[in-house]
């Protein structure tokens, strides 16, 4: 379950035949380096490794478990604590709204979600709530056509709220209606207002924050602002097909006290995976 470099660190601990303070500290340092390289927030890394050290030194291994298995289990459990379990994505009628920073992958992810639900037998509907970005209408429309999904947008409108209202009315037959919105960050207060207004109109069952896997831990404040503005129900981490580990995105998950729902692993519309903690954890630990 753990990355190979971490397995080596744990191997070091057990070579000494017993778990002592020095080797536990070495392990904690290795884990810290791996997580800091993956952009996990400094304080979160500190909390995590303090817990691991404390448990490794003070907990008794359960009956029949070797010290080595016990330490591996502790590391895995503490990682799971911050990464979160698999998220339940209900297979039912629902309205979904996607928000996030500029360029994070919302529009592409909207179409991926439509594809996902369509394959599960739920008719999707895509609504272009981005009236700002040049070509946004064309982009989402073209993606909808690729998967033969119903689409609503108003090419010339500058009123995102009205477009979304109209879209919800038009797409009454869609079981899962997915609202794409323009990129925005916390200092663009007029855009944050717009997002709050779209949220009031849609009253989404799920509000997903779409985050690029390579984002730095500065995203912590962003996650906070988005959560305070509309409440975040889940995070979708995109662009995991690169080298980024998603530690920054994880910081956002922890800050917004939510879970990871999906992972984007490429530009194609079928490159969306349900979140599964084990592989995410081993990727983080390098």
């Amino acid at each position: 379950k753990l990355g190979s470099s971490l397995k080596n660190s744990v191997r070091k601990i057990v070579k000494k035949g017993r778990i002592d303070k020095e080797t536990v500290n070495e392990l904690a340092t290795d884990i810290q380096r791996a997580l800091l390289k993956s952009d996990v927030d400094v304080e979160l890394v500190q909390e995590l490794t303090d817990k691991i050290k404390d448990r490794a030194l003070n907990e008794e291994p359960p009956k029949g478990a070797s010290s080595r298995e016990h330490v591996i289990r502790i590391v895995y459990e503490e990682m799971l604590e911050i990464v979160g379990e698999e998220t339940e994505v209900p297979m039912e009628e629902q309205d979904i709204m996607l928000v996030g920073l500029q360029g994070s992958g919302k529009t592409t992810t909207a179409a991926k979600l439509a594809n996902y639900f369509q394959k599960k037998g739920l008719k999707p509907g895509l609504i272009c709530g981005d009236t700002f970005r040049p070509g946004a209408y064309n982009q989402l429309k073209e993606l909808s056509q690729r998967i033969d999904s119903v689409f609503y947008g108003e090419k010339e409108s500058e009123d995102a709220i009205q477009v979304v209202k109209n879209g919800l009315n038009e797409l009454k037959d869609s079981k899962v209606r997915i609202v794409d919105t323009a990129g925005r960050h916390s200092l663009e207060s007029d855009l944050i207002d717009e997002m709050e207004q779209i949220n009031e109109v849609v009253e989404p069952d799920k509000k997903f924050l779409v985050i690029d896997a390579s984002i730095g831990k500065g995203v912590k404040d962003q996650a906070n602002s988005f959560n305070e503005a509309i409440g975040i129900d889940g995070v979708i981490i995109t662009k995991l097909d690169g080298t980024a580990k998603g530690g920054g995105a994880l910081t956002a998950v922890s800050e917004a006290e939510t879970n990871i729902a999906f992972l984007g692993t490429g530009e194609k519309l079928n490159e969306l995976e349900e979140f599964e903690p084990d592989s995410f954890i081993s990727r983080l630990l390098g």
Partner: protein
Amino acid sequence: VFLDEDDVEPYLEELKLSLLKSDVALEVSEKIVEKLESNLVGEEIKWRENSEKYVKKAFKEALIDVFPSEFNFFDFIEEKDKPINILFVGTNGVGKTTTIAKISKALEEKGYSSVLANGDTFRAGAIQQLDKHGENIDKKVIKHEKGGDPAAVIYDAVEYSEANNVDVVLGDTAGRMHTDVNLMDQIKKIKRVTKPDLIVFVDEAVAGSDAVERAKEFDEAVDVDAVILSKIDADVKGGAAISISHTIEKPIIFVGTGQGYEDIKEFNTDWFVGQILE
């Protein structure tokens, strides 16, 4: 009095942490602080100057040293034979297309004409996006149909510029992952065929340590000439600027400060380092 390790070390940890918290990559933060330590140990300081102030001043200089001497983009434009062919490359969603529109506007303000070459023949809505920008800033867009050869579009744009006395060709390319061998081969081919006068790597200020990986890969693939860092207006420290400069040692020429055509400004090392140290 001479500084030794014990004088210096307590501050180094704190400085390294401040870099990490500003999103500078771990290995870059460590290298900067290691170099600082070796520069400081053995330094003579005046009796009255306290070592903390000395270390912090040296730290500021160390950060300034990370940035290669500034490259003046407009001097380059002034001096180079026209048409000047500039290629923009980078990973997905960093702001290449928007940056091209901003640069075109900035060139206009300095009296230079430009065409936008739509080298993203792949992504949904890419052609319409650049078309709309062209319409908004009243600039010609050279494009082929979707799925066409990006090198051919840019080549066309250069031919058009030669025939019509246009000063600058701004070549847009599709975003691509540095891990995608085929797409990185494609960008090498675009360079081979269109022989750009300047290759600009665009990355975003909100990036974390992955900025190191992608800067390295793009630089190895096409030998980047300059960097533009977008989205500096988002509420982030922008440590990616330090990670990128340290890794590929190429000058940052502009920063993107918003989504509008005017939202671009020339990169200034002192200003940026001041921001990081705040």
